[in-house]
């Protein structure tokens, strides 16, 4: 399937935070452009502070009131219930409530934090279903809920429905959260670090659930800080650094042949079996201060880049260079060196 389902165009998000000398603006995301096709799995990789969570929240319109967005975000739903294209930033009221859950949904990092601790699971699932469907009675609701739990391979769905969140394990609860996210077969599912809070051996199970969802037509935005996760569970990958998209392309290409220096460092920093005994690679330095607009006048990665060229320090921020199906923001691939 190559029809587009989601289009980010120059999306920018800044947070207004109160500080000692009045309000400062933190530019958490700048100029993000991406097109997602139906049924594809896109990995969004970056360290904390890269803007990846902001991206996910922006899509669901869950940013706090102090956030100011710019650019455009368009969804092209399968189902034409709200037209051919949905302009996400202008949604409000009933249209927004319809959009959330029915066309886009989210899976959060900590399943225990993501569910209301004082309500039974069955009740929470049913109310999520009822947001977008009319159910005739309790029996139909329960049947629907049980089917949802079966879809995420949870044994004994009837028993699970009667339990409270704290009575399940992390892995089980995250499956419930995924069931909730998939309840209405949304066009896009944002999964924000879905396995980070879980034990490593549960990771594959959760991620394969997301693969199944993609196969049935829901695109997945897999947000993670761990580049090794995207290897087998994404078709394309975006690398975010300090709020900027520095590289994007098919996952296989990126992992085999990373272009941007940051990507190369991320891949090198993965602890693999061969490295046993040798010191781990770290990326020296810290993220820049995103409220200081001076840092945007040149390449954002410059202070930490091991492969810098003379042109990097003398010119403004590098433009986006396209090669085949890949994009990269780095002077090594153009703008002074030909191409």
């Amino acid at each position, binding site marked *: 399937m190559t029809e587009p389902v989601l289009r980010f165009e120059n999306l920018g998000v800044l947070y*207004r*935070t*109160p*500080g*000692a*000398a009045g309000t400062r603006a933190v530019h958490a995301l700048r100029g993000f452009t991406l097109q997602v096709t139906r049924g594809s799995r896109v990995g969004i990789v970056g360290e904390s502070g890269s803007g990846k969570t902001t991206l996910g929240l922006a899509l669901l319109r869950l940013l*706090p*009131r*102090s956030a100011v967005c710019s650019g455009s975000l368009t969804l092209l739903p399968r189902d034409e219930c709200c037209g051919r294209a949905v302009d996400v930033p202008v949604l409000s009221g009933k249209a927004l409530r319809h959009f959330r859950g029915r066309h886009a949904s989210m899976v959060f990092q900590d399943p225990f934090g993501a569910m209301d601790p004082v309500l039974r699971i069955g009740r929470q699932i049913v109310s999520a279903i009822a947001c977008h469907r009319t159910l005739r009675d309790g029996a139909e609701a329960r049947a629907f809920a049980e089917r949802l739990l079966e879809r995420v391979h949870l044994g004994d769905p009837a028993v699970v429905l009667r339990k409270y969140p704290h009575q399940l394990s992390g892995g089980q609860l995250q499956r419930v959260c995924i069931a909730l996210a998939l309840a209405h077969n949304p066009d896009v599912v944002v999964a924000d670090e879905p396995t980070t809070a879980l034990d490593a051996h549960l990771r594959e199970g959760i991620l394969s659930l997301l693969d199944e969802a993609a196969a049935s037509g829901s695109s997945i935005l897999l947000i993670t800080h761990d580049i090794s996760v995207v290897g087998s569970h994404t078709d394309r990958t975006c690398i975010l650094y300090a709020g900027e998209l520095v590289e994007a392309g098919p996952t296989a290409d990126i992992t085999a042949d990373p272009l941007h220096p940051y990507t190369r460092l991320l891949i090198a920093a993965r602890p693999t079996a061969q490295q046993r005994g040798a010191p781990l690679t770290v990326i020296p330095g810290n993220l820049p201060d995103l409220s200081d607009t001076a840092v945007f006048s040149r390449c954002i990665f410059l202070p930490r880049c091991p492969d810098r060229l003379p042109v990097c320090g003398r010119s403004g921020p590098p433009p986006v260079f396209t090669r085949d199906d890949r994009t990269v923001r780095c002077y090594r691939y153009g703008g002074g060196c030909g191409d």
Partner: protein
Amino acid sequence: MSYTATWTRVSGTGETMNRTLAAGLAICALFAVCAVFAGRLSPHDPLAQNLAARLQPPSAVHPMGTDELGRDVLSRMLHAAGVSLTVGLVSVGIATVIGTTLGLIAGFYGGLPDTLIMRAVDIMLCFPVFFLILMVVAFLKPNVFNIMVIIGLTSWPGLARYVRGEVLSLRESEFVRSAVMAGFGAGRLLFVHILPNVLVPVVVTFSLGVGGAILTESALSFLGLGVQPPQPSWGNILLAGKEYIHMAWWLSVFPGLAIFFAVIGFTLSGEGIRQWLNPRERG
């Protein structure tokens, strides 16, 4: 190895003062000035009776009128400020010392001392504080000293429980754990690590407590069990106000306003200190 106390709670946003704190301190300062310089500021002797000029409404000579014995209300109010502030500060001071000490012991050592102290706190908190104070004050001579001691001795339980909670959470925090691993003794832990960090919430609670103590003292005086006439107190002027409710509105209004603003002053100060030392909420 040089050493500095770890002030994890003091994370000021860089502003030295915020409006709340400024307003609160200004009001407190105003009352303090009235209290300290009451003698010089009063136009008349607060105890001088003038039966020919009883229950006079506010005028140029008597800006707040006169009471049922012809005494100048403004002068009495100024002198009453001293009483209220003293009672507030001293009684809460006593309660703070007792409460903080017991809270520290209970939280830090745990075990038997903790159980005993917390049981005592639970029991004391079952009694309506005011009734307890009433009971004791009724059996003693009602004077300023007794009132201060009683309010102090009945207000410490809440603070003890609060301090204990803070100590418990501090005990589990990383910097204390690392200090313990480094081998610091109990005394050093207590005084250098825990006490400075507990001090901040205690100071805030102290300011808020003074407001409460002022309310309590004036309530006692209002019931006739506090400061006794002829010594003036805002509460006992209000008592006269109740007697002459139909004839002398000024006796009811001014003392109430004074109490109201004094409490606001201390509460604002407490709030201001809390805002100053804690990061503000994000929108």
